[in-house]
């Protein structure tokens, strides 16, 4: 369950950035090949957020499809799993997307 550590990091980063304000929403990005299960993150989040500035915040998870560029033929192609190869048969490629594990933004409340 490394997702618990991931959620702790999210809550910690967002709490620090919020600087005492209540956080209403956290938008994160999880690549399909990041090794992190979005369902497990969503499951842990309310519990870890309890008693923090993120209590009752909405966790908005955006999954990112994985794509790579082939070193041999130059084509960009989807890599739905870790075993995907280029349609040309090559296994030498650079991953372009799909390994993201980022906090995009947070929304905080401020008294006017």
């Amino acid at each position, binding site marked *: *369950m*490394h997702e*618990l*550590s*991931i*959620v*702790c*990091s*999210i*809550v*910690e*980063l*967002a*709490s*620090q*950035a*919020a*600087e005492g*304000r209540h956080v*209403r929403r956290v938008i*994160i990005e999880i690549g399909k*090949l*990041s*090794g*992190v299960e979005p369902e497990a993150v969503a499951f842990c989040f309310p519990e*870890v957020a*309890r*008693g*923090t500035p*993120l209590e009752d915040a909405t966790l908005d998870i955006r999954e990112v499809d994985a794509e790579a560029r082939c070193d041999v033929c130059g084509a960009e192609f989807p890599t739905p*799993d*870790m*075993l995907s190869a280029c349609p040309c048969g090559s*296994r*030498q490629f650079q991953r372009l997307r799909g390994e993201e*594990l*980022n*906090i*995009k*933004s*947070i*929304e*905080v*409340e*401020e*008294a*006017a």
Partner: protein
Amino acid sequence: MCTSCGCQGQGTTMTNLQTGASAEFAAGSEQDGAAHSHGDHGRGHFHGEHHHAHDEHHHGHDSHAHGHDRSHAHAHDHSDHDQAHEETHRRLELETRILAKNDAIAAKCRAWLAGREIVALNLVSSPGAGKTTLLERAIADLSGALPLFVIEGDQATSNDGERIRAAGAPVVQVNTGTGCHLDAEMIARALSELKPSVGSLLLIENVGNLVCPALFDLGEHAKAVIFSTTEGEDKPLKYPHMFSAAKLVIFNKIDLLPHLDFSMERARENILRVNPDVEIVEVSAKTGAGMQQLYDWIRAQRTAVKEQALV
């Protein structure tokens, strides 16, 4: 795990088996500057200026190099509430890697190790693949030739640490409690306790788990997966993240091959499907067969690390 987010601590303890000193570390109690820094987020996307931003929501933050703070304060009229009040919502663009803190600490560990020409290997495997036996063998074989230090990670007990100490290497045992992997902060703290010497080999035995440790950079030179012949040949396909992150795969327990249906060829094919660039050695930590190949690989890494240190 962290005091600022309030999440429950995982009860990590660290034991120096040379001195017997044991400490529980609640993260956030900062003892050494190298380890933990809440003010330093690695990517520098956090802006101290937020303190002062409250009354300038509609101003561009031109002092911010990253320009992330596209604040869009908007008044919400909660007129359907009894006590109508105005509240503004502000979006803060963070664009930060979630593991930025771990990665920043790992980078410090890596720099610390590089400056001392220490080769650090992060050894990962399923439980029971033979990590500790492999370490015992390496300690015995390399004794006198190469100073060797060990950080032992397990959820509980210092059994493995005791075995390493008995084998003759300085060792710090980290017990992760409920944690399923070592992280960079544990390594930073273990390093300050262990103090590996210049030019030494540091072997980090991670928690037996092929899933979680793949994600956490410890500042190591390379990850090595120990894959024993008593496991299925399809393990690389089942745990591709770990095999993909590794620089070396160590087949262990090759002495058992005559008694098993394990196909080395199929297992190799599966490894290379996941990671075409990985190097593979075949050993028996029990009999010592093939260990020389592993030591040659380690010596090659040492040479590379030394050359990098000169650049």
